[in-house]
Structure formats: C-alpha cells, structure tokens
C-alpha cells in the first residue's frame, strides 16, 4: 500500500476516525495502531509481517535485558547480541547474495571455488528503516538515555505505519514520549499536515514521476543514444527527481502522522541550497545523517581520536551509509565520494581554508560547486546495481563527448520542473508559513475545496499509474 493511492486513502480515513475515537484509551489505541500498521505492511507481502513481529519481540527482549542487568560487561554482551540479531537479519535479506556473488567472483579470479551459492531472497520493504529504529532503541537504552517501555508502546513505535517503509527514522526519545499519553484532540496542526500532504503528493506524483518518465529513465538507460546536453539535463533532472520523490514521501509521512496527533522530525531542509557537502548532509535525509553520526561515527571514535582517525571515521561512516542504500559497488562509491569530500572539507576548515559562513558571490559559487558535486555522485547512485559502474562511466563520458547532437529529450516541461524543483528550495521560509497560516484561518469549506483541487491537479498532471518510491527499495 503506497500513500498516493485510493486504497491507502480509504485505509487512512478509517484509521484516522478510529484512532481519535480510541485515543482516550491508550492501551486499546496502541493495539489498534499496531494492527492497522500490520495490515498496511501485509499489503506488500503478508509473510513479512512475521519479520516485523520478530523485530518487535526480539528488540523489546534485548532492551529489557540491557536495562535490568547491572554489570557493564553483561550489558555490553546483550547489546552485542542485539546488534548481531538486527544486522544479521538485515544482512541476510539485503546483502547475502551481494556478498556471496562478490566472494565467488573474488575467489574465482584466483582459481578457487566459493562454498556458498546465491539464493533468491526477496527484500522486505522498509527493513532498513525499522531495523535502524530498533538499533537506536536498544543503543539508547544501553547508553541510559532511554528507559524501556511496554511491549505495546514499543510495538506501536516500531510499526507505526506513517514511517514504517521509508522513514523518517524516528528515534525512541522523539516518538515514545508522545505515546505515553493521549494526544490532545483539540489541538491538531491540520494546516501544516495538509500542506505537507498536498505538497508531498505534488512533488512525488507530478514532478518526480514526470522527470523520471520524460528524461531520467531514458538517458540513464541508454547513455550512448543521447547527446551531451541531454545527459547534463538528465543528471540535473535526476537530482530533482530523487529529492521530489523522497522528500515528497516523507512530507506525506510527517503530514499523516500530524493528522493522527504525532510529530515526526524534519527530514529535508532545502538540500540543494547547501554551501558544502557537510551542509548538504545537514539538510538531506537528516534523520539518516544523525543516525549515522550517533550510532556509527561516534562509536567509531568520532573526532576524539586525532585528525587522521577523524577522516578515516568520516570515510568509513559514509561508505557504510552508501552500502545501506543498496548492495552494489556503485552505492559504495557514492558513499565513498561523500565521505572523501566530507574529510576534505573538514581538513580545509581545520586550517581555515574554508568556511560555510560566506555571502555574496562566494556563497553562490559554493552553492553551485556543492550542487554539482552532489549531482556527480548521484550518477553512481542512479546507475545502481550490477552494471552500475559501466553505466556511470558511460554517463560521465557522454557528458562531454556528444555536443551538438539533437536533444529531443530536453523539452520545456523537463526544464520547467527542474527549475521549479530547485527554485522552490530557495523560497524564503515565510512563504510556506504564510500559506499555512492563511489556510489555517480559512473556513472548513474553503479548506476542503483547496485540498480537493490539489488532489485533482496532482492526479491529472501526473503520469498514469504511480511508480513506487525510490527509497522503498532501501
């Protein structure tokens, strides 16, 4: 079940009404929301519901054990078991075939056989997201930053359907306190919720899908058939497509949660206005960035073990971040590029050679350079799986070697949505705030009409059918 479908709309209307009716009875509400979330998840494949159920029981048991044990060594042992359990399940579903094939090919090159064979493993949707949330829960308990909650509260936290399949990655300290007591039914931030749902829908259904079908899939599918101009525009289009797709999804997720009375953390903050790669990661998939910082970079030693180790930690963290996105070397290279650029940026800042606090043309120069570095790395990200590296190389070559050829894929519609996708990130924050404030003051009938028109426009302007969200496969 994906958000911009009639099936989900019916499902959500039922859940919205029932949720507020049951809200005064928290235990019953939690059981209801877990059931609803399982129904939502089962729509993909009912068998994976058992995996989600296992994750809830396993991590709750680990969390309780860590909390009850006194001896640090025992706590650490249980945490290690918890991490192995979580990463083992994630690794099996997501990386088993990748490592087996890579191992086979490595040993094959030196004339040896590999003992394991590949399996046809179907990746459960959203497994990376709920596994990361579960890890944050048990690690926060280990660090004594969080106390374990009841099984139903933890179950509601982990399976809550708005964030279940593609985030944002909500930490226990953010959502669990909201599950402690009923949400106030008199104070719902409806205008922000509807604004996020409306803009998220438009971004995904219209902008992302348009760019995907009109240029991105073509130029990345067969780079040799396209001109250099098409390739440049195609790369920019992909940058806008992935932003509109993913931020559109999380906007909808945050808006839906708000209608149910819950606040999720921000996940995007105008990432293409970033002035450095470090700044980009403060604005792009923010909940993953801070997860990597708190549960990978800092445990690696962060910046506490000297300068060389700091650079190494940055690189290692981003390599793992790349691998998290997919079991392919092109994702690892994408992560490695970002890790390398982060390390270089830090090196330059440490020596006073660079600063994010700039104005005027220097500011724009930094923005343009950062945007192009990000776009360059997106080439590897989009190139994806097995043939990813050769596809990426074809794209990079074609950026330069076929100028002057006809460029039928570069249409006014494509250019328009790229410009819209980037320019809206430069809108002053006051504009959306004003729209939301005006909407909140409008009469109910006006709100209904405005929202209905947004729904109609998105449905009419988008291509027929709704493509899955890019981040579902991560």
């Amino acid at each position, binding site marked *: 079940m994906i958000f911009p479908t009639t099936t989900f709309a019916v499902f959500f209307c039922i859940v919205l009404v029932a949720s507020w009716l049951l809200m005064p009875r928290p235990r019953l509400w939690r059981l209801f929301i877990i059931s609803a979330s399982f129904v939502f998840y089962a729509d993909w494949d009912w068998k994976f519901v058992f995996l989600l159920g296992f994750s809830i029981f396993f991590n709750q048991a680990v969390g309780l054990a860590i909390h009850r044990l006194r001896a640090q060594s025992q706590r650490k042992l249980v945490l290690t078991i918890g991490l192995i359990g979580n990463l083992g399940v994630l690794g099996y579903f997501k990386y088993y075939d990748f490592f087996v094939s890579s191992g086979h090919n490595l040993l094959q090159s030196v004339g040896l056989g590999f003992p394991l064979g590949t399996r046809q493993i179907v990746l459960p949707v959203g497994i990376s997201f709920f596994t990361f949330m579960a890890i944050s829960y048990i690690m926060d308990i280990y660090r004594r930053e969080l106390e374990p909650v009841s099984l139903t509260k933890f179950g509601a936290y982990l399976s809550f359907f708005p964030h279940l399949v593609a985030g944002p990655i909500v930490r226990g300290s953010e959502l669990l306190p909201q599950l402690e007591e009923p949400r106030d039914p008199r104070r719902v931030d409806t205008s922000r919720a509807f604004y996020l749902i409306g803009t998220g829908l438009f971004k995904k259904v219209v902008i992302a899908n348009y760019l995907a079908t009109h240029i991105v899939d073509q130029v990345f*599918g067969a780079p040799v058939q396209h001109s250099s101009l098409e390739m440049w525009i195609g790369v920019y289009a992909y940058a806008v497509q992935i932003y509109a797709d993913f931020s559109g999804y999380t906007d909808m997720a945050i808006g839906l949660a708000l209608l149910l009375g819950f606040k999720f953390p921000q996940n995007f903050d105008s990432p293409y206005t970033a002035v450095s790669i470090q700044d980009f990661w403060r604005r792009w998939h923010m909940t993953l960035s801070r997860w990597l910082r708190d549960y990978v970079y800092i445990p690696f030693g962060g910046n506490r073990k000297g300068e060389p180790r700091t650079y190494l930690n940055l690189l290692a963290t981003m390599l793992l971040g790349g691998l998290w996105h997919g079991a392919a070397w092109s994702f690892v290279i994408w992560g490695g590029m970002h890790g390398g650029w982060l390390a270089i940026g830090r090196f330059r800042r440490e020596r006073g050679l660079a600063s994010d606090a700039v104005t005027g043309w220097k500011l724009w120069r930094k923005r343009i350079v950062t945007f192009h570095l990000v776009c360059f790395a997106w080439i590897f990200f989009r190139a994806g799986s097995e043939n990813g590296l050769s596809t990426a190389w074809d794209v990079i070559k074609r950026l330069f070697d076929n100028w002057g050829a006809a460029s039928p894929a570069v249409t006014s519609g494509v250019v328009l949505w790229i410009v819209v996708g980037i320019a809206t990130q430069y809108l002053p924050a006051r504009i959306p705030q004003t729209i939301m404030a005006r909407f909140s003051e409008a009469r109910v009938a006006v709100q209904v009409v405005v929202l209905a028109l947004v729904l109609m426009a998105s449905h009419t302007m988008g291509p027929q059918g709704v493509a899955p969200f890019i981040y579902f496969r991560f």
Partner: protein
Amino acid sequence: METRPRSRSSRRNREDRVPSGPLAGTDNGAGGRGPRRRLHPAGQAIVVGIGALLLGALLNARGLHKTAQSMNPSWKRDLGLALAKPLQTVSDDTGLDYPRRGLQALLGRSSDDDIVSQIVLPPPPPPPPVSPPVKKHHHKPPVHHRTTPPPPPVAPPPKKPAFSPHHPLRVYIGGDSLIIVPGESMLRAMGSKVYKPLDSVDGHVSTGLERPDVFNWFDRIRQVMKKDKPNVVIVAFGANDDHSYMTGLPKGVSIGDFGSPAWIKEYRRRVGGFMDTVIGNGGFVIYLGMPIVSSPSESHDFDLINKILYQEAKKRPKGALYVDTWFQFADPKTGGYAEYLPNKNGDLVKVRSNDGVHFEPAGGDIIARLVLKALNQRYDLTSWKKHTASG
C-alpha cells in the same frame, strides 16, 4: 490608547496557535519564523480530510473510473467500478469534471480518460495459392547425353537488405515492463551509427494484448508503423496476459479460463494480428519470448504463452521471428529459475531483479546480444564499413 476586552474566542484562538521560532520548524523550507497558524480540533481534520477526498473523487471521477476499469478482475475492481460509475454520473451532471477536462486540454492530454477497448486487426493473410496439379507426362523427357552430369543448381544466398549510416535501420522497441531493461541494453549496444532507434524504449508497465482498455497496443503499433515507418519492431508482451479475462472481444465470443482452447484461439488471433499489422506495413517483427520466472505457477503460464508466440512467428517466417529467452535465464545446472548467472568469465552476475520477474541490466545485455545477432543474420549491417574503408 483604547483597550478592548478580548472575547473568549479570540483568547482561545491565540492559545491554539503554534508558536513560531525554531521549535515550530517544519520541512523543506517551511520552517522558521512567520505568521502563526491556528490549531484545529481532530474532528475538523477528519471533516476536511474526508470532505476533500470526496470532492476530489468527484473532480477526478473520470480518472478514477479509468483506474478502476484498468484493474485486473477482482472484488477491488468490482467495488471500484461500482463506486466510480455513480461518481462519474454526478460529476458529469454537475459539471464538476470541467476543471479536470480544462487542465487536460491545457496539457494536451484530453484523451487520457478515454477507454478504447476495440481491437482493429488486419484481415488474416490469404492462404497460400494452390498451384494447379501438374499434368503427368506420359512421354519420356528428352535425354541429353553428356559425359558428366551437370552440377546441381546452387541457389545463390538471398541478398540481405543492407543498411548503413546513410540509410540506417529504423528500429522500434516497445512492450510491457519486461522490455524496458532489455530495450535499454539494446539501445546501448546499437550505438548511433547503423541503427536508428525511434525514440526511447516504448515500455508501458502492466500492459499487454489482453487488455486494450488499459493500453491499446493494436492502435499504438498502427500509429507507429504509419508515422515512424520502422524496419524492425522489437516487442515483448505476455507477462500481464495470463488471466482468464480479456477486453475487446468480438461480439458473441467468450474465452473461458486462461489456457482453455477458446482463450488460446483468441490470444493467438491477437498475437497474429499484431504481427500482421507490422508485416503489412513493411516491418519485420522480433517477438521476445518470456523468461522463466521465480514463481513456478507463473512460469507455467508464461510457457503456454511462449508456445503461442513461437507458433505464430513460425507461421510468418518472412515477417516475424520469435527470440527465446527462457533457457537463457534458466540455471545451467538445475534448469530452474536463476537470479545470478555466470558470465563469460565465470563471474556470477545478477541478471534478474529482486521481484523474480524483471531483468537487471546484465540480464538485459544477454537479450540484447540475442536480438543483435538475429538482426545481423537478417540484415547486412556491416558491409558499409568495407565501402567506407576502401573509399
């Protein structure tokens, strides 16, 4: 300065506003300081949400009807149609469909909501002419005495149609989702000299020959042949055609269950008609068979469809070719489905996507090689190089 006592409602409104500032930060540039917004009761959220969905459904009634119509037969489709039809009636009667129609006209997509299920196929080719019976000569043919028997006449190999960069082979690639990745591999492999692909891969997800109301491939190929005049049409259909349901049936025809004689007859008519449309317009059709898939029952269905494709192509040897992909993607040891296959170096490469049906680019490359080999057997695509070199 005059002060007025605040009313209860204004006090309530003030209290029910979200504070501005960092804690009020919202997403994607919507955060920061700005005018305050009112909070509302949950009941209003429900009313606005459901009201907007209902009004939106009326504004979009035609689109919803088409969406419901396009679904595979199921209770969901029946329910969708049962709800969408009255919605469309209300929408049409009240003029609520005007905004959508206006927007579609503005975008040049006025036909988006049309449902065309009629199939127009060329008349079946006439049966081969029956040659008159040869009269038996009772007298002996004259005998010429020769010292050595003449060599048997050797028919010169038929001259292959030649293409060059000046006269490129025009290629159209289209079909359901299974054509997309192999089609892109073909485009990559074809390069940009002797082949002239017509635009990008014309792949339409969840379509086939079974449901012209979802996407009418018969109309589409007729338009392509008329407008673009491709020499070669490379297509893949069938993966969405394994159902006991078809639209666009001739009057009085029912098809029964998938695989029944009536179903096979009708599907055969469509496949053959599609091929004849291409051939009748001067094109050559390469029909890709479906690969083995991870689901045994689906593999069984695909096998049946492949037989029809193979037989229909065989009936038209001058105008159609069936390219088998089944065995290319079967495990060399077990003959079953394989997600990874060894390449020519023996390295394992992922050739199928996680859904157990579609192809990874490496899988697409395997199909592209088969298709290019077939094209090279049929056409002379290389002699222009000799002329260029000698010239």
